[in-house]
């Protein structure tokens, strides 16, 4: 596990901000689950900045470090067939370069 890095990209988002996960399908070692791509949620917290695992996986330094967020989504936003109550949510860790500001 990598610790917080000092050489970090500044954080663009803060708790409460609405963000959309980029709908991209690059190859490689990725930590952004397919089911979250294209979905819009709200930043729950900034977890700090971490060396980018997409680079670490190929023995590169992964710096400057990427801010990492926990983003909260409504389950109904992720699954068209979700059967639980509308209040159910899911929180996913997503790195900043996968997020765009949402209206």
């Amino acid at each position, binding site marked *: *596990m*990598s*610790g917080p890095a000092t050489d970090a990209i500044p954080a663009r988002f803060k708790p409460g901000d609405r963000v959309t996960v980029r709908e991209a399908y690059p190859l490689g070692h990725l*930590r*952004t*689950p397919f*089911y979250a791509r294209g979905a819009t949620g709200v930043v729950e917290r900034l*977890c*700090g900045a*971490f060396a980018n*695992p997409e680079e670490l996986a190929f023995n590169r330094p992964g710096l400057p470090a990427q801010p*990492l967020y*926990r983003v*909260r989504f409504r*389950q109904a936003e*992720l*699954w068209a067939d*979700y*059967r*639980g*109550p509308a*209040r*159910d*949510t*899911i*929180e*996913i*860790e*997503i*790195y900043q370069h996968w997020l765009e500001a949402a209206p």
Partner: protein
Amino acid sequence: MSGQPHDHHVQGHHDHDHDHDHPHAPPPDADSDLTYHQAMELAVTSLLLEKGVFSADDMRRQIEAMDARHPGLGGKLVARCWVDPAFKARALADGSAACREIGLEIGPLKLIVVENTAEVHNLIVCTLCSCYPRMLLGLPPDWYKSRAYRSRAVHEPRAVLAEFGTHIPDDVEVRVHDSTADMRYLVLPRRPAGTEGWDEARLADLATRDSMVGVAFATSAG
């Protein structure tokens, strides 16, 4: 099998070939052939030992230390949260700092503690692999690593919970946490009723592994 080993080389003992369908043949060993990665692990290990990077005893000690971790460590954190509201607030703000405050050895673990309440029930999963707070709970159970749990916990968490015997009313939010990156998660279960005045050691036993993953409630008192 009978107590005495059979001597298959005694001539004339049987009048048929011994190779097939022998009623007293020992069952085959359960060991299967090495997989590619098992063979690679053995090769790398023997090179590291040969080059003196570490000793066999170092490796054994490390495995022993990993195997010695157990859910009682997480239970200690939960019990302290139950008896000390100020500590609970610190644990929810910074789980790693709270562990260190009570002397839990967690190494580089970045812990987030999520609290079950009358309004929210939390459930932990890692859909990408099997990330798990091993420093506090030990090795994960097989079901946690299974493809079925990993895919279903995010898509139909209430059905998964029900299969564990955990029924969450519709007016309680189920909040799943997908442990996809650098953080690890521990659920702070609700303190069972009827445990007023219990000491921390007794309370810690109620915080089971499954309750700290969120698939169950803490064990009820009595």
